[in-house]
């Protein structure tokens, strides 16, 4: 069996007042999009920064192609941090060219600009870009060495929905090039859309790991019914159903949809606003940690 592209073993990162990462291990094979999910403070960014070689771990090991991180990894990795400022007074093209100059191999500046649909903005001062354009430039910089592994740390946080969707399209086109991607996010939709495998982190530990669909199947063999709390009479709350109240909705979890519907009708619960939906990663997170994913 070939060694995974990236492997993390028993990673621990302690700060004087807290343990940010507490014994995290996982392996990422080549070509996979691996997602690290969790709320702020779960330890995702710390884990990823240790993987990137930016932050030294307190203990634990990191391997790239079976070897400890070294020069080869730096040449092969593309990184998009959560927050990055670029050098002032440079145009988009010059910013990309600066980073291209730091790598031995890679794509041409024009290719990268085309890949990230930045050709029209090449001559613009990088500080004058919109949020979405700025993220595309940072992605272009992360791709400038034609990386074997791409780290995306909350790449769409703060973007408007349209810019977020555009960014996802770009990431999908990169996935199509068989690049390995490590993505951290607290957007479930993003993880479900892009990731082949996810690890859910909470309090510095991985609480669940696997393909998103498999995790959902394992943890939720049921379907979810949602009704506005206002439509749900008080008397119906004593029905023999698995009920939870979330954000003004009553959620009913069931294995047998028809039987549950019959029970509700018998109790004269109005079903006009009833919504049946499959559970998503948000529900999974809530189930696993008792916390909501978004802060």
């Amino acid at each position, binding site marked *: 069996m070939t060694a995974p592209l990236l492997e993390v073993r028993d990673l621990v990162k302690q700060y004087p007042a807290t343990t940010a990462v507490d014994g995290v291990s996982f392996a990422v094979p080549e070509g996979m999009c691996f997602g690290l999910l969790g709320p702020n403070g779960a330890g995702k960014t710390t884990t990823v920064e240790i993987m*990137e*070689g*930016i932050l030294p771990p307190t203990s634990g090991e990191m391997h790239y192609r079976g070897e400890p991180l070294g*020069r080869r990894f*730096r*040449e092969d*990795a593309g*990184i998009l*941090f959560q*927050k*990055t*400022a*670029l*050098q*002032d*007074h*440079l145009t988009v093209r*010059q910013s990309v*060219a*600066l*980073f*291209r*100059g*730091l*790598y*031995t191999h890679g794509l041409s500046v024009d290719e990268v600009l085309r890949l990230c649909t930045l050709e029209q903005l090449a001559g613009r001062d990088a500080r004058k870009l919109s949020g979405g354009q700025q993220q595309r430039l940072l992605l272009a*910089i992360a791709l400038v060495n034609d990386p074997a592994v791409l780290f995306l740390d909350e790449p769409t946080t703060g973007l408007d929905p349209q810019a977020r969707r555009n960014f996802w399209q770009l990431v999908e086109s990169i996935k199509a090039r068989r690049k390995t991607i490590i993505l951290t996010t607290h957007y479930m939709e993003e993880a479900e859309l892009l990731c082949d495998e996810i690890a859910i982190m909470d309090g510095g530990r991985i609480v669940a790991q696997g393909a998103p669909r498999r995790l959902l199947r394992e943890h939720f063999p049921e379907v979810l019914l949602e009704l506005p709390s206002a439509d749900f009479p008080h008397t119906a709350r004593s029905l023999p159903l698995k009920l939870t109240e979330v954000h003004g909705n009553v959620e009913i979890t069931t294995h047998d949809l028809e039987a549950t519907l019959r029970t509700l009708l018998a109790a004269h619960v109005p079903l006009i606003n009833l919504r049946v939906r499959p559970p998503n990663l948000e529900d999974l997170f809530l189930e696993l940690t008792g916390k909501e994913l978004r802060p």
Partner: protein
Amino acid sequence: MMRRLLAVFHARNLEFVRDRVPFAFTLLLPVMLVIGMSFVLGGPPRPLFKVGVLDGPADEHAHPFVAAEELYVQIVPLTDRDEALHKLTHQQLDLLVDFGSGTRYWVNTDSPKGHLVEKLLLADEPGARREPVTGKALRYVDWLFPGILGMNMMFNCLFGVGYVVLRYRKSGFLKRLHATPLTAFEFLAAQVLSRLTLIVAVTLILYLGIGVLIHFHSAGNPALLALLALLGALSLIALGLTVAARFSSEEMVGILLNLLTWPMMLLSGVWFSLEGSPRWVQWVAHAFPLTHLLDAARAVMLDGAGLTQIAPNLLYLAATTLVFLAFGAWSFRWRID
């Protein structure tokens, strides 16, 4: 390695040249200072003769010449004849007298005041032996000129490098560079080279521009002066890097830079000579790279000194560059701790 270094070097140069206001100030400030100082301190000289007295009697005022001319003559007691003659050639003294066995005096034949005070002396000491010297007057502005160039270099090197690296660290740009194959040495070397190119270019422009403006003519070798400027700038840039290597707080870096620049500005001889100041002040001053830069620059520009004369200063500048760079590289941090 060179490829990465050049990429950072080029980008930093672009950033500096496009940041127009600081760039303009780098050029304009020293010009304004020299013009301002030459107006304030220039003007007609005071109607007083300065006479150096060598190995004079314990009380110089006892001599008939001195006593008779006390109203017009300021006596400067001196023991070192070479130094006294140096002052006379620069017309910092109008006359130099040795009242030893058989009065002997030196007069600068290029100095009109020397000619007049010579007549006063001969009225009292008709038999005094005459030793003529020549040399143009050293104006304050000539003396100040190397000081202003050096001071501009110091501020540019320390604040330029110090704050730029701090800004990069605070904004996370350094952290992003750390995620590339770029090494700390390559990054620091690119910063040093970029700042060095800029400082040498700016100093050359100022040297030529202000030189024309104040009719300054250097007495020394331009190549030696260029070497000195290069080593002086390197030492000061390296000093700036030691401050910027680690800290992430603007306040802290600001305090440290001010702690370094102010004493250097006051004690390195930018504005006035440290001659005659207490020994400990001179001792402190000679720890500063700027003092060595200015001493050597004045020796070359005003007295035409050669390589051997300024070699100790050049060595000091080279040695401090190495010490500062080593410390800077050792304590360098890519990210905010």
